[in-house]
Structures are given as C-alpha cells and as structure tokens.
C-alpha cells in the first residue's frame, strides 16, 4: 500500500513540475508510466500503430493539461490512463476499424471470457472495486469489462454475447448502477 502511495506522490510531484513546463520531469514521467499506458491502449485497440498514436496524443495532452489535474479526478496514474483510454476510443471509433471480424472475432471474445479477462479482474485495482464487481451478475460484469478493456460498442457486445442489443444495454446500465450503489456503501 505504501508503495502505491509513494508512487502516486511521485507522479503528483512530476505533474506539478510539468505544469511549470519542466521537460526533465516530463521525460521521467514518460519513463515511469508509458509502459503501463501503452499496455492499456494496446489491449483496448489490439493494434500497435493505433495504440502508439494514442500514447503520443495522451502525452501531448498531459504536457498541456498537467495544471488541470486535481484530487477529485482520482489518483494521478488513473487520471493519465483515462486520458489515454479516451484517446484510444476516439481513434478507434474514427477509424471504425477492428483488427478481426466475423467468427474469429467471436472466438477471441469467448477466449477472453474464460481466461485473461478473469485474470485482469483478479488483479485489477482496489479490493473495493473487485468486491463490488463480484456482486454483479456474470453478464453484467462481462459486458462492463468488455466495454472497458476492449472498447466494445453496444452492437459489438450484442454480437459477442449473442444477445439482443436492448438486453446488452440494460446489462451495462443496471450493472453500472449496481456497481455505484455498492461503491458508495
């Protein structure tokens, strides 16, 4: 826990320095988090060139917006990863492209549900979030995690989970609200 705290303190210090245009701090920040950021973008996009573009865009944004970071926006690392995640989703949607389609696509999703997704879930984030995700139904949890990690649209989820789009939408919406009630407890 203290490791995590001290890392967040360090990242916070770097962000403050970057807000004063400290390029050395910026390069240190890149060295500290670019691996995690690229890992996240790559997982989301499944395309290296797209993930590379997103990381570049995110760091340019971080340089310009470091001064806008504040506590309410979560831990510094989450804030920066969120920037990269939104950017990845934007580029994905602009390109409207997917690396795989049809049956191959479905197969990959099915694999994810059995393996890496569960693994991600086990090691992901705070115990609080994990505990609350565990309280959701399996379909709610899967649709939320597939949206988060894979950036699936409602259409793609509907195809991947072989369920009508209205059903998928309601899994997500109800799942998120149940998650919030749990997190607020």
């Amino acid at each position, binding site marked *: 826990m203290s490791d995590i705290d001290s890392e967040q303190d360090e990242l916070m210090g770097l962000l403050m320095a970057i807000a004063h245009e400290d*390029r*050395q701090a910026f*390069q240190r920040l*890149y*060295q500290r988090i*670019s*691996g*995690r*950021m*690229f*890992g*996240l973008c*790559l*997982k989301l996009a499944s395309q290296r060139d797209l*993930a*590379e573009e997103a*990381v*570049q865009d995110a*760091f*340019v944004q971080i*340089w310009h917006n470091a001064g806008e970071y504040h506590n*309410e*926006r*979560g*831990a510094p*690392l*989450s*804030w920066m*990863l*969120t920037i990269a*995640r*939104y950017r990845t*989703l934007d580029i994905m*949607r602009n390109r409207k492209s997917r690396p795989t389609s049809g049956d191959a696509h479905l197969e990959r999703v099915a694999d994810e549900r059995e393996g890496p997704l569960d693994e*991600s879930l086990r*090691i*992901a*984030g*705070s115990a609080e*979030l994990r505990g609350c995700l565990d309280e959701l139904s399996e379909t709610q949890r899967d649709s*939320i*995690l597939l*949206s*988060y*990690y894979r*950036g*699936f*649209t*409602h259409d793609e*989820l509907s195809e991947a989970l072989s369920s009508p789009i209205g059903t998928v939408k309601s899994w*997500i*919406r109800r799942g*998120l*609200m149940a*998650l*919030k009630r749990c*997190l607020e407890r």
Partner: protein
Amino acid sequence: MKRTPERIEALAAEYVLGSLHGAARRRFERWMMESVRIRQEVWFWEEKLGHLGTRIEEEQPPASVWAGIERRLWPQVDKAGGAEAANEGAGRWFWPSWSILATAAALVLAVVLLQHPEPGVDDHLSGAIVQADVTDPLWLVSQSVLDRQLKLRPVAATAAQQGKDYELWIVPEDGQPLSLGVIPVGDTYRVTLDDEARKLLSNSRTLAISLEPVGGSPTGQPTGPILHVAKLYRL
C-alpha cells in the same frame, strides 16, 4: 433531453466506460462543460474504473513514440536545429546524470592506446573500453575515415544480463547522446557513421555504453545505467 439526476448518473457511467458514443457522447461532453456537478459525476467513475487500468501488463512503446512526442511539442529541437537547441532545454538535464554515473561507477574507466594508424589515413580514432578488474579490454574500438565505419571488437566483453542489451552512444560535447545501436553479442560490431555522427564523434571523441531493455532504449536516450565511458585517441 432533460438532465435528471438519474439520467446524468447513468450517462456519466457510460461515458467513462466508453459505451456512450457518437452524437450522445458529444452531447454529454457539452453537458460536462456546463456543469461542475456533471463533471464530478464523471470524475467519480474515472477514479473508480481507473483501478481497472492500472494493473494491466506493461508493454514498452517503441522509441519512435517518444521521438514523436518531442517533435510535436518542441519541433525546434528536432534534427537540423540539433545540438544547440537540445542543449538549451531538454538536453541540459541529461548531463548531471552522465557525469555522476561516470565518476561514481564502480568500474574504473580508462583508455589505452592500442592501435597504430594506417599510413596516410587522417583522423583515425582508436581506443578501448576497459574495466578495472578485467585484464583484457572489453572491446577494442577503431574508426577509420576511409570506410566511415566504427568498429567495436569484443575481447573480454560478456553478454548483457538476461532481458538486457548493451547500447552504444556517441556522447557529444553538447546536447543529447546519439545512439549507434545495440551491440550484438560475440561479433564485431560495425556501424557506418553518417556525417552528423562523424562530426560529433570527431569533436568529443567520447563513446558510452548503457544497459538497456532488449532491442535498445525505448526513448531514444539512455534509460539504464551508463556502464562505460571511453575517450578515443586520435592517431
């Protein structure tokens, strides 16, 4: 669309999750700009769901990503403006770490004169990369103007530790080090120097070797410890 608390709550969650897109996403972004309350709702989810993103397996981006960031933020530091520009801003930070590492290293850095010039060849640089507790030099270095090649011949050098590579750098008198690539294990490493590299090396006559992730530095600048610094002699 009416901004009821229930609707805001639901849309904020979907916005952060990414399942809200197209016109609905843009409309919600406008709502965010107009209301602190809505932004706070979004931040709640960014903070909570952010935990999902922090434990994903790391993957180092290629060096071109950092180079691209620098190019976009500080285009004047790029290439042509070169050494001077780099030394004014981003470049300066690098030097303290070089000098500290070079002097504090447990390795004693020394240079010995090893080769005699071939007759009639000007500006022939030569030297060796040595280590105090190893009798033989680790690598012999020679540069000849004729074929514009720098040669690094391993003598007592051993492979880098598992998951690491040695990377060779020209350390210019001013500005950022210039990578000459990853040194392969066991073979003589030959690298052809372009005009810029030859000029930098001719002025500073200084090479360095750093320990980097496999495939070389992900940033285009040394990221690992500087293991050796060697000054070449002009023969």
